[in-house]
């Protein structure tokens, strides 16, 4: 079970490949891996977004992501989980979040990855400030899943 907050750009596919090769998810035990990657769009509410600043609450953000990882592991009997989230300045096309889970069967993997993303979006202390053509503004609420 791993949680990482990164303040620089990352390649989710390379990171995932390295993570799995390093052997944290026990090879031979898992039959299902579900992966979610969230990427920055260049539009929100019909307006162009040029860049994004992601603020977090150092310490609490990690604690919340660890808490939901433990909850998902217990509820779906996961073999491993990985959550990576960006903070700092981002541009359209850059990955914001990576969630991956490993389990024996697909039902647990699909359900647990959905659960982690919804718990992350609704409660993890992270805030987006968008830079648009007409100025900067804090995003007031997340879009429904």
């Amino acid at each position, binding site marked *: 079970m791993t949680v990482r907050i990164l303040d620089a750009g990352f390649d989710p596919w390379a990171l995932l490949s390295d993570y799995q090769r390093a052997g944290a998810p026990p090879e031979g035990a898992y039959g299902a891996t579900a992966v979610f990657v969230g990427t920055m769009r260049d539009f929100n509410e019909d307006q162009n977004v040029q860049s994004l600043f992601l603020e977090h609450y150092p310490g609490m953000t990690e*604690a919340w992501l660890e808490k939901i990882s433990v909850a998902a592991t217990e509820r779906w009997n996961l073999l491993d989980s990985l959550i990576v989230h960006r903070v700092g300045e981002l541009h359209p096309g850059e990955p914001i979040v990576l969630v991956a889970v490993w389990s024996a069967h697909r039902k647990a993997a699909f359900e647990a990855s959905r659960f982690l993303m919804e718990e992350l979006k609704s409660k993890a202390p992270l805030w987006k400030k968008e830079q648009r053509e007409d100025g900067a503004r804090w995003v007031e609420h997340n879009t429904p899943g």
Partner: protein
Amino acid sequence: MRIEVRFFAGLRERLGVAEREVSVPDDTSIRQLWSLVVPEEPLPDNVLAARNMEYVDLSSIPCDGDEIAFFPPVTGGAG
């Protein structure tokens, strides 16, 4: 009791303060703490609060040395 109060995101920018250590009477609730620290501004309806980095109800009463954070609805993730 002494409390470390922190503000994040739009709230931090609007109030112009990121953190402030304050001394308040014992039995001060988190809701009352806001009015003592930010008397000029009513508590926003959608504000969230954390005590020592865990979500907490606004009616709860902190202890000496606690860190209390106020912040707006969260907007992390993507997709």
